[in-house]
């Protein structure tokens, strides 16, 4: 077990280094001189040189990277050009907003998929199968921004159930926070429901054919207990992998949804900074997203080994 984790971490090292390098190189993708682009045509050579120094652009490239990486490892991602604050501060201020939205979307998606998936695997129901197929198709074919606008039109503009956008910190006004959460949560979570549902349906169908399920039934256990305790537990393993992948989809979706619903999270920060050419912030957001994504997938892999004794035994 420990050896496996160390192995995985060692393998991650070059990838993490390359991820950092790609992120670092973003500012060098900027056509022309980034400092000149940021300051505009009228800027004096002195101010351009000053900003170049501030961005570290006056040193040779390898030295720049080592310096940048060293700073990044200490949590210093430079200063935002637009926001008059350090990048790390700008990011961590907005992190709770994105975490709340992302977590809610994940719970919404999995919470909807598990009962539907179990039901569809245990009941041969044509209507339900049809519904799953259609929702899979719709889930992949309706862009999240279209869904978001439909939800706003239906539930905010027409029915006035929920506000069309905005954010209230949970600590200030819990009710308002939750009311504001509903629509973006649905808009962000719906896209992944179908994938989860299919996964649970497929693995449940497979698990239900095993002998131990027959044994459980023969013991006289209730159908409910067999389905939800014996079968579901073993069907959830593949779901873990899917959730790992989904974190990426949710991180990607967050910046669209946050921009539409005006949630001041990391996603909106990323989009706003992309518009404002605030490169250090874009780098910070991308680096954070990539590393959290890598970390979550590592945790998924490890928990997979931990949860399935067969994998553990095969390795040792």
């Amino acid at each position, binding site marked *: 077990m420990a050896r496996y984790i160390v192995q995985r971490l060692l393998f991650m090292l070059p990838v993490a280094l390359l991820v950092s390098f790609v992120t670092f190189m973003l500012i060098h993708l900027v056509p022309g001189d980034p400092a000149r682009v940021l300051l505009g045509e009228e800027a004096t050579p002195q101010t351009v040189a000053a900003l170049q120094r501030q961005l570290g652009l006056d040193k040779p490239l390898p030295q720049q990277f080592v310096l940048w990486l060293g700073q990044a490892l200490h949590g210093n991602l430079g200063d935002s050009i637009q926001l008059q604050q350090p990048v790390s501060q700008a990011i961590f201020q907005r992190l709770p907003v994105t975490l709340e939205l992302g977590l809610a979307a994940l719970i919404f998606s999995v919470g909807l998929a598990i009962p539907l998936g179990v039901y569809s695997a245990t009941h041969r129901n044509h209507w339900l199968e049809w519904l799953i197929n259609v929702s899979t198709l719709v889930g992949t*074919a309706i862009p999240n921004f279209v869904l978001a606008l439909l939800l706003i039109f239906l539930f905010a503009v027409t029915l006035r159930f929920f506000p069309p956008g905005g954010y209230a910190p949970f600590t200030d006004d819990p009710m308002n926070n939750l009311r504001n959460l509903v629509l973006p949560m649905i808009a962000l979570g719906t896209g992944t429901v179908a994938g989860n549902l299919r996964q649970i349906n497929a693995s449940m169908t497979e698990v239900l054919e095993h002998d131990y399920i027959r044994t459980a039934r023969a013991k006289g256990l209730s159908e409910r207990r067999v389905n939800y305790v014996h079968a579901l537990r073993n069907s959830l393993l593949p779901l873990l992998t899917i959730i790992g992948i989904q974190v990426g989809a949710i991180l990607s979706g967050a910046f669209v949804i946050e921009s539409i619903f005006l949630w001041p999270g990391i996603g909106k920060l990323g*989009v706003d900074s992309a518009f404002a050419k605030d490169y250090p912030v874009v780098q910070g957001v991308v680096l954070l997203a990539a590393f959290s994504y890598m970390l979550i997938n590592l945790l998924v892999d490890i928990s997979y080994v931990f949860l399935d004794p067969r994998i553990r035994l095969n390795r040792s």
Partner: protein
Amino acid sequence: MAESISLPESEEPAGLPIAASPWFKRVLSEFRHNPRWWFSLVLLAFILAAIFAPLVSPYDPLAYHPVITAQPPTWAHLLGTDSLGRDQLSRIIYGTRVSLSIGLISILLGGLTGTLLGMLAAYFKGWVDQLIAILVDALLAFPSLLLALAIIAALGPSLINLAIALAIVRVPIYARLARGQTLQVVSQDYIMAAHSAGTHTLKILTRHILPNIFGPLLVQATISVSLAILDESIFSFLGLGAQPPTPEWGAMINDAQTFLASDPWMMFGPALAIVLVLVSLNLVGDALRGLLDPRDAERITMIFRTTRGGSS
């Protein structure tokens, strides 16, 4: 896109003496067997609309008329007009060009690069393989849209830069797929035979390996085209793709967003266009996958009988 949909039809040299039914009957039976194929006609309609946009669109997509701004659908303007009085239908038709071409260009660029990397990794193995694996893993470590966002932030928002960003994002999928497929093919005897006959590596890769891994790549391409079109519309919606006044679906929906309360129908046309294209691409991709699935080998030989017999 065109070649992947019309694959069963176009690769069929009509008029060859075939014992069974003529090609169109076999295609028709394939359509009956799998109704998903009918959606290839929807795609065809969009492709034709894109090619013949100047002929089929009723108005100039850029001509604005201050008198008729934000009109609901009328007989003169079937999908209404936008906030500047431009005909929505014409803009949707021209928008097809943007979406389809960015989708195609990014998949071609990303698909070719990824396939090449994957083939090289599987063919040369060793350190080449490891190096490419690290590169692919690093690209996969970024949530895909965020990587594209970062590239666009650096290069500046434009359709070309968007196509480049979306191409880079697709590279790892093709690299992994091509690597896996190539590994299977490389161990075959005929590759070793070609190798020992002194065939040039490039020729082995393009003539012997590529044709044998092409099927799964093509299926992946139909799926990725729909993803690329989706991503393209997202970035244009955010204002980081197509720039005004370019008619583009995502940008049109962004315009309509402002009028959601007063003129909700303004969103309807472009939203429907995106959904229709994505649904069709997904369904046709499914059908294509079914066709290329080895378990359906019998039906493949039915449909490709003439071409396979002729070329090899």
